[in-house]
């Protein structure tokens, strides 16, 4: 065998050795040892400019939850192209709104949780050697100005917009020594002295001890938001959301962003698995239950549901209960406790119906028929439930309240009980909502009460005291979604919400 062959075979052996060395993992350098069963890790695409804060926070997340986080750093734009093609990963943390909008318009992201904020400033080297005090100074012959590129950076677009409004963009951009793709390129220019002034984020200035911001709001008071978005194709959205909640929580991630110069956001309290309480009128149960169940699953949260007559629910709230959200049977039951909730969102409405035995043996069709002697009528309790109050009001408006009163054999807190009693044969008729009657249509007949005020509107409202305002906003969004609409309509409700949020 000659030398050439020997070397060739040797190179094969060397390749094998190299592959072995690549695969060989020496003791973990991170110092983590508590690996029992490895959980699937999360893949995060993170703008390189946020590396210090996100890395620290992710490390804490790993320690607290035992779940590994793999962070893919890069320019926001590069990352965006990557995830568009690769279609894998769980979370996208862009350097600013610009890329998030792009990701949104490509339908790449689902939920978004804000993490921090920043504003544009005019930055110079420490000590302001060129004595730059305002935008006029940027036009001086001895000032080398560097600007962010409006095509590649949110701050560039913002700067162009604001400078155009002041009629300065043309002259400044033609005077600029460079248009740089990222804000860090600009900061590096200032640090190295290859530019005298640049427009960067206030957070950038705080990250670079060599820079300072020229005092004054030259570009107006505008903000950009850094946020974590769950990727639409994430296979573990609950875990991705958990990490996003961690990063955006004032107790966990936000302080890291503040330490690195960003302004924090007022986020949700941190909990590994948040527990929330939803009060809901019984009539809404079937329409919202599936939405709540899916929300729990996707978000990794626990929802305690309290279904009851709305009079009882409202009374409980007035007595000091603080549900995180309240899906009322009618807007009239939200009003008494309005102070405890943010403005409600009207989801659906349902009409009042007369429910009767199958085949309607007694021929009951209108409210006045209910005054027939000897009839066994069931009504909802007028104080305990929205339906009861509504029934009484409509009967009064038709001057039938007294005539019907002697036929009322039962007043229940919810319509479900009336339906059950009707089905059991204990009642001849009951006043319920269409949404109560429709699911039981196989066992009874019902007739819509033809009267202008004989319907109820179901709003959802978020409690002012909730520790999870952002989570609750997402729940409201879920309840207002087209899927939720289908569920409401299938249960006999009429969808009320206009498409605009």
């Amino acid at each position, binding site marked *: 065998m*000659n*030398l*050439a*062959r020997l070397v060739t075979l040797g*190179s094969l052996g*060397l*390749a094998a050795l*190299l*592959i072995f*060395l*690549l695969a060989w993992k020496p003791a973990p*350098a*991170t110092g983590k040892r508590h690996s029992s069963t490895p959980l699937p890790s999360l*893949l995060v695409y993170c703008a*390189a*400019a946020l*590396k*210090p804060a996100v*890395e620290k926070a992710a490390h804490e997340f790993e320690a607290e939850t035992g779940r590994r986080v*793999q*962070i*893919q*750093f*890069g*320019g926001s734009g*590069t990352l965006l*192209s*990557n995830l568009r*093609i*690769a*279609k*894998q990963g769980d979370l996208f943390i862009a350097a600013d709104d610009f890329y998030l909008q792009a990701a949104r318009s490509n339908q790449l992201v689902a939920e978004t949780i804000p993490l921090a904020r920043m504003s544009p400033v005019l930055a110079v080297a420490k000590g302001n050697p060129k004595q730059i005090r305002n935008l006029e100074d940027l036009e001086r012959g001895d000032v080398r100005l560097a600007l962010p590129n409006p095509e590649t950076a949110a701050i560039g677009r913002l700067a162009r917009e604001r400078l155009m409004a002041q009629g300065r963009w043309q002259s400044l951009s033609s005077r600029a020594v460079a248009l740089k793709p*990222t804000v*860090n390129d600009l*900061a*590096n220019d200032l*640090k*190295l002295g290859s530019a005298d002034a640049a427009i960067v984020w206030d957070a*950038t200035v705080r*990250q*670079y001890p060599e820079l300072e911001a020229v005092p004054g709001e030259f570009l107006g008071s505008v903000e950009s938001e850094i946020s974590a978005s769950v990727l639409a194709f994430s296979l573990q959205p609950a875990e991705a959301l958990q990490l996003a909640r961690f990063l955006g929580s004032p107790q966990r991630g936000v302080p890291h962003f503040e330490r690195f110069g960003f302004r924090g956001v007022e986020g949700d309290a941190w909990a590994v698995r948040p527990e929330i309480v939803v009060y809901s009128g019984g009539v809404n149960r079937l329409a919202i239950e599936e939405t709540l169940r899916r929300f729990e699953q996707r978000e990794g949260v626990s929802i305690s549901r309290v279904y009851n007559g709305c009079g009882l629910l409202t009374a409980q709230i007035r007595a000091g209960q603080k549900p995180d959200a309240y899906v009322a049977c009618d807007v009239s039951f939200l009003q008494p406790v309005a102070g405890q909730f943010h403005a409600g969102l009207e989801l659906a409405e349902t009409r009042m119906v007369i429910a009767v035995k199958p085949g309607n043996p007694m021929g009951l069709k209108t409210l006045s028929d209910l005054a027939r002697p000897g009839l066994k009528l069931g009504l909802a309790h007028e104080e305990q439930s929205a339906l009861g109050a509504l029934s009484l009001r409509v009967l009064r408006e038709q001057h039938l309240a007294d005539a019907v009163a002697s036929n009322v054999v039962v007043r229940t807190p919810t319509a479900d009980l009336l339906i059950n009693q009707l089905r059991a044969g204990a009642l001849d008729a009951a006043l319920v909502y269409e949404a109560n009657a429709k699911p039981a249509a196989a066992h009874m007949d019902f007739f819509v009460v033809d009267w202008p005020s004989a319907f109820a509107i179901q709003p959802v409202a978020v409690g002012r005291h909730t520790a999870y305002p952002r989570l609750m906003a997402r729940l409201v969004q879920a309840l207002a979604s087209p899927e939720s609409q289908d569920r409401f309509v299938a249960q006999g409700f009429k969808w009320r919400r206009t498409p605009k949020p």
Partner: protein
Amino acid sequence: MKRASTNTAPLSSADRRFYAALAVLGGSYGVMVAALLLADLAYTTPGHLWTSLQSSEIRYAIRLSLLSCTLTTLMSLWVAIPLGYLLARRRFPGSVLVDLLVDIPMVLPPLVIGLSLLILFQTAPGRMIERVLPVTYAVPGVILAQFMVSCAFAVRTMRTTFEQMNPRAEQVALTLGCGRAEAFWRVALPAAKRGVLAAATLAWARSLGEFGPILVFAGATRFKTEVLSTTVFLELSVGNLEAAIAVSLLMVMAAVIALLLLRRWGGEPNLGQAGPA
């Protein structure tokens, strides 16, 4: 390539002027490179270098860089030697096309190579491979991204090497009873040793500096796919110029040591003497 350049005989004044002109013209580039390194050195301190070396992240990146570059170099040689020989010695149907194809990675912007790899591995066959061996955002992705670029340079070098070799020696071997294969093993390949070393050097150095395709295709995940060039990018993007420079200087040092070793092992005494040994 002849050793005559080391001639130290007394020079005539005309020759002296000629050499001086050469030195000025060519030397300016060398001076420029040295100036760049000096500027970098002035920007950093031994402390920064030491801090960088102590970071476990950077140590991992060094290890991955050295291993992946060496493996990439070997793979490039395995492809480049046969392909270079084939292209230099034989015209075959489609040889022009092959010749053209292997040049494409040299002209494509590196980022596009990364992007193309990413797209390739999202196709049905690509996904099948991923199911067996994860490539995207994994270490094999780093090697593949390096290989796609550095192999093109190695092929070009090997082709030129074989083309410049006089085929007579092989023809003589054939007349003496060798087959084609034997002539290749016994004559062509040993004679191409310097070309192989040049190709290896080029491939290794290219891989070490490779950055765009790796960032796009393999990502820059710490303790996973972060190599030295991506470390530099990451440090730059958070404004840590000192660390970026320190890591770059580490790369220069690693490259110098590796290239000197390669040349010494390749038995080039004139270059070996230039080394610190």
